[in-house]
């Protein structure tokens, strides 16, 4: 453990252990004895994948662990100002929360109380902890709102959370958190749910606040690239243990631990495009990395490829009722046109609300009426009546974003994978279909016995594999991946991306790869289409678009990508 010198330690965590009781007989160790320091006036990033114990650690500091099934064994200490926070009485701890140590969470919509105005929630903190009167608190609240960058604070102070955008909600949360000028701000994945441009703004805001208030920030995230931009110190956790910790330069330049190295390299990077993405296991087993992870893969369209799908002037509007008889039209997709080549990948990027998902669902006829044409194999997909869609449904398939919601929880994997075969009458007998399913399971890297299991027995990454397998049963020509890896951890993401690539190499499927993650899109796509507010902003080969963006919006988007710590140093 590297000790911290410089200006002093704000919080010292020593040998923290946390156990969770799952039922009468099972106890799991979420945190297995970790120690690190949070220095004064600095940013510490706590990095790890899901299940690493980082959120548990943060909650432990504030004493927010659920009483009914969590225990912190004696011997663990969290020292703050000479006192062990774990041993404090609840009343004492409450005085610290919000005043000395405050926290912001990942989902601002669920962290803010929906029935109170923003102003109320800010002033609550002020009146309770600082003893201000209502009027004083309101004045201070307006100041805070201005400080966190909410436009029109006089109007917004009386707004309810649902009336603000995601980014504004997060800013409001931050305002509440810094209202009492705490010494430590714990931020638990505060930007994961935000668009990449907003994400950048929030990060800058937190950095600015940290400097001005001279407070410490404990920044929890799974994204190492993000960490590089803002952190002074980095602590890497895996499965309840600290794998490595130290200054940010050291972690990024000379990572000691294999896992740290894996985390750094599993993410697709803008500079390189290896043939296969390395995964954690590549680093954890001894020996050099496989050649495939070092070779480069080239992507891009030459212009003479066979076009399998051509979309012309696609438009989709949603109507909502306005008043008693009126109808309001919301144009989700306006005049989108593109061509998809056989065996190639088209990446669609854009922020939330840009219409990229709507494009995909409309092509699949899952969203009802639309305008424009989608020429596929000589026929216009959008004008085929529903009753005749069956043969075409096989040929374009989709993998959804949320692996937890796209599989029917009551079906076994076998039933899930057999169903498309049964519906489309593929194969001549049940046993033949079963064989196909077993082969597919093998192809996506799942054991045969999965056939009899239920989705909830699998992790997120495994479920995405199942979803991919489900699409493969029908041997589609086009596979749409709608944010298919966005909800996955970095290492799992790499595995799934590799799988997708292998399948494309094997079966020559065409992909439409939708994502907000620009690095991933650059890695996977041959051609990239940038969308904003329902319209196509720019279309080009992926290398070209990243090297030489034409449209200002594209430029703005690219500049928001976290550059890693080098970017921070460059600033």
């Amino acid at each position: 453990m590297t000790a911290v010198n410089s200006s002093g330690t704000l919080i010292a965590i020593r040998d923290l252990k946390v156990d969770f009781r799952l039922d009468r007989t099972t106890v799991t160790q979420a945190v297995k004895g970790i120690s690190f320091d949070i220095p004064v006036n600095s940013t510490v990033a706590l990095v790890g994948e899901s299940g690493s114990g980082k959120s548990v650690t943060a909650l432990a500091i504030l004493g927010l662990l659920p009483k009914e099934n969590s225990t912190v064994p004696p011997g663990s200490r969290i020292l703050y100002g000479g006192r062990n926070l774990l041993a404090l009485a609840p009343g004492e701890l409450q005085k610290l929360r919000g005043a000395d140590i405050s926290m912001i969470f990942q989902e601002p919509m669920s962290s803010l109380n929906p029935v109170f105005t923003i102003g109320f929630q800010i002033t609550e903190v002020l009146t309770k902890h600082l003893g201000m009167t209502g009027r004083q608190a309101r004045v201070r609240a307006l100041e805070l709102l201005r400080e966190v960058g909410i436009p029109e604070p006089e109007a917004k102070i009386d707004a309810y959370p649902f009336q603000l955008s995601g980014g504004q909600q997060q800013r409001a949360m931050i305002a509440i958190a810094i209202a009492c000028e705490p010494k430590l701000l714990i931020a638990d994945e505060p930007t994961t749910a935000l668009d990449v441009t907003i994400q950048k703004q929030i990060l800058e805001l937190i950095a600015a606040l940290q400097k001005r208030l001279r407070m410490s920030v404990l920044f929890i995230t799974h994204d190492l690239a993000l960490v590089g931009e803002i952190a002074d110190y980095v602590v890497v956790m895996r499965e309840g243990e600290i794998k490595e910790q130290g200054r940010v330069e050291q972690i990024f330049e000379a990572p000691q631990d294999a896992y740290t190295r894996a985390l750094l390299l599993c993410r697709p990077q803008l500079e390189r495009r290896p043939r296969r993405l390395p995964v954690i296991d590549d680093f954890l087993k001894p020996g050099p990395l496989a050649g495939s992870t070092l070779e480069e893969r080239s992507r891009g369209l030459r212009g003479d490829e066979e076009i399998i799908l051509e979309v012309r002037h696609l438009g989709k509007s949603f109507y909502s009722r306005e008043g008693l008889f009126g109808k309001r039209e919301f144009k989700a997709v306006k005049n989108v046109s593109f061509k998809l080549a056989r065996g190639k990948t088209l990446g669609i990027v854009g922020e939330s609300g840009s219409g990229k998902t709507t494009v995909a669902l409309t092509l699949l006829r899952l969203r009802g009426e639309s305008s424009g044409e989608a020429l596929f194999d000589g026929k216009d997909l959008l004008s085929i009546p529903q009753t005749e869609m069956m043969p075409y449904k096989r040929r374009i398939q989709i993998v959804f974003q949320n692996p937890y919601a796209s599989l029917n929880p009551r079906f076994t994997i076998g039933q899930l994978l057999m169903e498309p075969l049964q519906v489309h009458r593929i194969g001549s007998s049940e046993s033949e279909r079963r064989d196909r399913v077993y082969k597919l399971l093998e192809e996506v890297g799942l054991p045969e016995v999965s056939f009899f299991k239920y989705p909830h027995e699998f992790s997120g990454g495994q479920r995405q594999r199942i979803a991919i397998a489900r699409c493969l049963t029908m041997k589609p020509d086009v596979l749409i991946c709608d944010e298919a890896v966005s909800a996955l951890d970095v290492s799992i993401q790499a595995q799934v991306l590799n799988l997708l690539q292998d399948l494309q190499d094997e079966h020559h499927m065409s992909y439409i790869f939708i994502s907000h993650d620009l690095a991933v899109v650059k890695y996977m796509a041959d051609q990239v289409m940038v969308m904003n507010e329902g319209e196509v902003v720019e279309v080009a080969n992926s290398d070209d678009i990243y090297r030489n963006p034409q449209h200002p919006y594209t430029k703005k988007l690219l500049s928001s990508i976290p550059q890693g710590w080098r970017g921070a140093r460059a600033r």
Partner: protein
Amino acid sequence: MTQAAALAIGVQRAESPGLWTLAWRRFCRDRVGLVSFLIVVFFFGLMAASGVHLIAADWSKEVGVNYAPPTFIGPEVADGGPSAPGSHGGERTGEANPFDPLAGVLAEIRAASGAASVAEAQAPTLVFGGDRWGRDVLQKTIKGTETSMFVGLVAAVLAAFLATVFGALAGYYGGWIDDFFNWFYSVFTSIPYLLLILAIAAVLNQKGTLTVILILGLTGWTGIFRLVRAEYLKHKVREYIQAADAIGASHPRRMFVHILPNVSHVILVQLSLHVVLFIKSEVVLSFLGFGVGVDTVSWGSMLNEAQSELILGYWWQLAAATLAMALLVTGFSLFTDALRDALDPKLK
């Protein structure tokens, strides 16, 4: 999902079994639930045994004297009620009728047969007493269990079936289909439940067990309908349904193969609740005279008879029916509660 549970599950890597196994395990931990489950099983057993005539097959035989008291009280002191002035004791004796065309035949028959048959001895007391005609109250109670439970179960299944179909159609398709079913539902629920069943019972001239089942089933679907419809509205927009649509699953397939298993636990709990409700409704109907016919005994008909008996001080039939009913209804209700806890979908 509470953060605690989320953290816990995120931490756990071990294998976890399917939904029903989990539910069963949870259920077994609940002691009250287990006891009530045993009670329900016991009553089911009674119903089955009675249904195949293993027990209480002779419930209608008059084995005791009229209003035979329970054995633990002792036989009734001879005070067989006041007699009427000038009444001839015993039955009619008959006389000659010169106009009778059957006189000859009757004389032959009487000559052929010997002495009058000996009436079967009637017990002065029975285990739990006898009713007006001397039938064994205990056997009647058991037979009544069969009737009441059968009616409750079948009516509940009927109601659940109707409600599931209606709810699925309304929740899934929405639009004017939903409007139609909602209108239909509103008509049924705007009339107070008891008045509704009495009104229908009075109009249907055909009396009997089947009628009661139909009445209860055809009026009791509304509560389940509302819940099923809500579940369908919820599930219809879920991603796995979109995925099913993308695969090419038809509407009926999506409704009944995909969504229905996700809703089945709700329906099961509602089914259980409605069994209890319909048992109580059947008792009320039979008590008011609109329920099962004369040749069938149910707790309701026993309570009906108990009305006039209580005035005369004969309480055992009332006690037996009430005890049995109280035990079953309480047990079943507690069982339903435990079932609902065990199937809590949040902890899937």
